């Protein structure tokens, strides 16, 4: 039987098939932004061709398709989601627009306020109120509710979000509201805050529910269409979709919790990172995906990716458990400029793909990181992107020349400066996901993804004292492949605010058990009957702190008699790890309990290892700039023999990336054809 992973990117749709022997096939089709399913079907045809099958046969033999889609993300980024109406507790219609009083840039008083996702006239108060302890203060008033719904009907809303105060505690008014909506506005999807995110803190819950309502119709339409097309093409198995937390879900589940698809874009990269961790037995990795405009950085620790619950996209707060990925405005297309103070700045402005860097010859005149890379000899003007594109060296010289003149420096110094500045920014980005999360990155390996990463990882790793870098051969294929190795995952959370010492351990166990039951039920409903794994987390804080710390409860034996003491101790330890101090004489407060119920899917069979062979010599030499000009050998990544080692300075090129080895770096070619690079320490 065959498994297929499909990763839809901005430009290409990558399709990977693995057959029963572990043999891997890959096809690439242009992405079709208007309807991504067309590109997917096209990609499947091409994959069938690569496997010497017709598409119907391929699909008939396929047991599972895993899909990563950006439909929900794009709907939010491009503000092309549904026209949403919001029903909320009377007296509280402006929670979304008030943003808890915060504004992003404290010194920019000329920044116009953001346009809320739901305009004020579509945010309507309903007479009802539940108290913090769950008691009903004001019963849900049917007249007020019906008047609000009538208003939404007049306004022709396409999706409705409902978020009442304290619905995390008692959802009865939200449920009754849904019943009324189904009756009075049939066919319009409804998102209840008590189902999307049953957690205390109304702004996070409301914003997440609104995002859910906003992207859900577009996602449902797309996945419905895709499933229909796949069925028509002869596929009968399940279609699983990558979610923001890095697991996969059935179409029904992901549509219900559509906000969980919004941050799923980089999930493929994380899936790939987990795959690398498995293959190399390197459980601690920092995936580092450097593209044209931004770099996504994450953390995989002990083979598990970190999750966070405070992500934002396009200015919207999404408080669902999501992979903890930091995106910084630094990429190959980042623009360099010298400010009025005479100081070199690089990014966050980017030349993007169009016009792109000056050396693309598409009319870009500003110097970018890629232009600097070309002038330093790191890129081959004739072989860029596998030779599909010739780089314009003169244009790069003109662009970087302007920077050099402003700095009173020569061309190479200016170009090397652009590199150093961008490397500094990216190293700060790695600190964000590691040091600022209480993790020392020095024991981690940096995992280089994306076309631009290979030239920068060595310098970034050095700044952080990291001594190992891994560069996979075909990162895009690895993403799709990694998806095939992702498990079914249901993330559930409930608020239960109480001081830890006032809790009853059997009550706490019961709460976790309830979530676990719900998660298992969801897996069964998705037709899953394999082995299940459960992870438990508690969000805790000291007294008046407002940020909770996620405490991993998995190391605690669940039936231990001193469960509460062990949980409190784990919290104090984690607090100290994160923030250098703990207050062990204080009773912590437990705020949320979280459960991940994971349905384990069998990993795809491993790719047969490539045999070791005689070292392959460089295909040429090039003059490159590292402190000064020097000659460096240039290797072809595709041609290298497993087991071969390469010492820096050297360049290793492939169709999608170029890797720079600095003096002292030593790369070993793995059985998979990846580079495993060790940096000098000390």
């Amino acid at each position: 039987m065959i498994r297929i992973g499909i990763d839809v990117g901005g430009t290409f749709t990558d399709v990977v098939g693995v057959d029963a022997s572990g043999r891997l096939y890959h096809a690439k089709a242009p992405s079709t932004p208007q309807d991504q399913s067309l590109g997917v079907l096209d990609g499947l045809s091409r994959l069938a061709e690569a496997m010497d099958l017709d598409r119907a046969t391929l699909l008939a033999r396929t047991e599972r398709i895993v899909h990563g889609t950006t439909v929900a993300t794009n709907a939010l980024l491009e503000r092309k989601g549904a026209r949403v109406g919001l029903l909320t507790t009377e007296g509280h219609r402006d929670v979304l627009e008030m943003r808890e009083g915060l504004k992003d840039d404290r010194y920019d008083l000329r920044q116009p306020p953001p346009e809320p996702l739901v305009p004020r006239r579509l945010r309507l108060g309903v007479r009802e109120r539940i108290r913090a302890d769950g008691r009903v203060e004001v019963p849900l008033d049917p007249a007020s509710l019906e008047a609000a719904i009538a208003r939404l009907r007049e306004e022709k809303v396409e999706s409705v979000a409902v978020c009442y105060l304290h619905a995390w505690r008692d959802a009865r008014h939200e449920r009754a509201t849904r019943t009324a909506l189904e009756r009075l506005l049939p066919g319009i999807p409804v998102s209840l805050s008590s189902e999307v995110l049953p957690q205390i803190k109304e702004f996070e819950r409301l914003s997440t529910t609104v995002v859910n309502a906003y992207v859900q119709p577009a996602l449902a339409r797309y996945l419905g269409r895709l499933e229909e097309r796949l069925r028509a093409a002869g596929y009968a198995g399940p279609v699983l979709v990558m979610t923001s937390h890095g697991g996969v879900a059935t179409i029904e589940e992901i549509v219900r919790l559509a906000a969980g698809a919004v941050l799923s874009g980089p999930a493929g990269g994380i899936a790939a990172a987990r795959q690398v961790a498995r293959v190399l037995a390197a459980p601690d990795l920092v995936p580092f995906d450097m593209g044209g405009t931004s770099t996504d950085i994450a953390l995989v620790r002990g083979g598990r990716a970190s999750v966070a619950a405070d992500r934002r996209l396009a200015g919207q707060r999404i408080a669902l458990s999501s992979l903890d990925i930091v995106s910084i405005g630094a990429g190959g297309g980042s623009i360099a400029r010298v400010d009025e103070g005479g100081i070199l700045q690089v990014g966050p402005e980017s030349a993007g793909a169009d016009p792109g860097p000056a050396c693309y010859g598409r009319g870009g005149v500003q110097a970018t990181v890629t232009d600097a890379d070309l002038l330093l000899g790191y890129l081959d003007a004739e072989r860029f992107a596998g030779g599909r594109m010739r780089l314009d060296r003169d244009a790069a010289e003109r662009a970087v020349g302007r920077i050099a003149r402003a700095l009173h420096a020569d061309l190479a110094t200016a170009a090397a400066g652009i590199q150093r500045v961008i490397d500094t920014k990216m190293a700060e980005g790695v600190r964000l996901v590691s040091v600022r999360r209480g993790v020392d990155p020095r024991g981690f390996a940096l995992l280089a993804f994306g076309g631009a990463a290979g030239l920068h990882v060595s310098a970034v790793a050095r700044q952080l004292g990291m001594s190992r870098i891994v560069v996979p051969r075909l990162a895009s294929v690895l993403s799709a492949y990694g998806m095939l190795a992702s498990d079914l995952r249901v993330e559930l959370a409930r608020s239960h605010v109480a001081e830890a010492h006032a809790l009853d351990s059997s009550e706490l166990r019961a709460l976790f058990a309830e979530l676990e039951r719900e998660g298992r039920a969801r897996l069964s409903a998705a037709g899953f009957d394999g082995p299940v794994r459960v992870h438990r987390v508690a969000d805790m804080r000291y007294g008046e702190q407002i940020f909770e710390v996620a405490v991993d409860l998995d190391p605690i034996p669940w039936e231990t008699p001193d469960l509460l003491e062990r949980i409190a101790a784990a919290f104090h330890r984690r607090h100290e790890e994160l923030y250098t101090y703990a207050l062990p004489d204080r009773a912590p407060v437990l705020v949320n309990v979280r459960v991940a119920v994971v349905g384990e899917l069998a990993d795809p069979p491993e790719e047969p290892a490539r045999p070791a062979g005689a070292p392959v010599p460089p295909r040429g030499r090039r003059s490159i700039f590292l402190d000064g000009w020097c000659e460096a050998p240039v290797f072809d990544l595709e041609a290298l023999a497993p087991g071969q080692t390469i010492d820096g300075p050297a360049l290793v090129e492939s169709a999608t990336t170029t890797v720079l080895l600095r003096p002292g770096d030593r790369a070993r070619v793995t059985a998979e054809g990846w580079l495993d690079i060790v940096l000098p320490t000390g």
Partner: protein
Amino acid sequence: MPVDPITVSVVQHRLHGIVEEMGEAMLRTSYSQILNSSRDFSTALADPRGRLVAQAEHVPIHVGALPFAVRAVQAVFEGRIRPGDVFLLNDPYRGGNHLPDLTAFVPVFADGRHLFWSINRAHQSDIGGATHGAYNPAATEIWQEGIRVPPLRLYDAGTLREDVLDLLALNVRHPRDFKGDLAAMIGSARLGARRLEALLGELGTETALEAVEAVLDGAERRVRAILAGWPDGVYRGEAVLDDDGHGRTDVTIRATVTKRGSDLEVDLSESDPECAGFVNSSYPNSYSACVVALAYLIDADIPKNDGAFRPLSMKVREGTVVHPREGRPVTLCTNHCGQEIIEAIVKALAPACPERAMAGWGRRFRVALKGTDPRNGRPFLWHLFQARPGGGASSAGDGWPAAGEWQAAGGIKFGSLEVHEVRFPLFFARHELRPGSGGDGEHRGGPGAILEMRIEVAEPAVANTAGDGVRHGACGILGGKDGAPHDYRLRSADGSERILRTKEVGIVVRPGDLLVARSGGGGGWGDPARRSAAARARDAAEGYVQEAPEGGR
């Protein structure tokens, strides 16, 4: 040979990364609501001459005051500063803003030389004195406002002076919270010191020092380039406080701003005489307010360091409200009259740089409530952060809705009402935007907010207020109208209503009383006649201008 320009850029980024990381650590570890919610703290690096090298973007009003604090510590301990030391200070007559702002200093050494300070200034939830929560409108001298801390050694070469800590903790109302916050402050400052030492080691001390000079010079050049583009001249602006809480009304700040070439001199010496109450501004705070005004008028991405503010000078006269004689009370000054100093300067310069100037942001009106929670019998202390006033409009567009005051500008998080209801005996019946409160103009001021909150105590609670702006709203500029002023009331179950003044102590709050706070809107920018028909139609459709009938509950 001068340091290469690339290293300069790298150093600028690294310094910024360090202060940001210090701030992040503080935000997540501080214990009190006022620190983690309102983010009322700053992290910075300075050199021993008090020159600010980098500052995280936290509290603007702290920026310009920190150099005075560094110089005060240096003056006392010069020659006796060792690795592992930690110093404290809060006295506004010795480099502090006001007493609640306590500052921790950790020296940074390289090659055996003391080269920098890593600094954390944070607002304490209590600092002793006659009232809880640090704001005492009744105070007529600084000793009634809290404990004064001159430059003080807390750690001696790594050893905590426990007796000193006990002395401080004994003089504040919540010693455990105080110690928790202090631990967070020191942790944050030590983190900055460690990272800066690593940077010095990596680049070599001399190179790093030269790069720092170049970073400061770079910021100076950027600011001068902007100032040079404004027409030379003498510009005048005024801003008026409601009162001093002791019977004097309309306390006026007068700014005469002389712009010549790329220099800016702010002369505040014609401002009104010092007051009996706590609206006086300490000298460092007044200078800092000038710095904030300039920071808002230049580009937001210019690093806030010593270089950026070299073009600025301030003139004040002792005995005025902006430079009181030692001993006057000053606690409200980071809000008032700090904000009025900013406002007077921005108003003065609006004709010189209309595209850069912004209309007034709202004023602060705080309420601190002390009582007993009937659900558990425990005492509680609560500060009002909800009902943020509106932001001022600018050339870029309408003002931000409910985003806060001049000196905070969207930096104060009011937090979850649900969490408040769990934690305090409070019931939030209403918290929404206040239509019609933003000043009209080509660009409209942001609306303030309406809060209706029931205080569910069983025994009477006590409230204090501290603030301004029930008579004067946020100023409109360039023809724009002022925002509506604040209107706070306490409504009892029997229907009786009491209008709250901005500077009161000992207000008795009866069980079930409703606090109805209608906060002011931001000022408008430009002639209202130029507001587009589309913008007016949108205002009407979305309900931003029409004051709704007293609805809700």
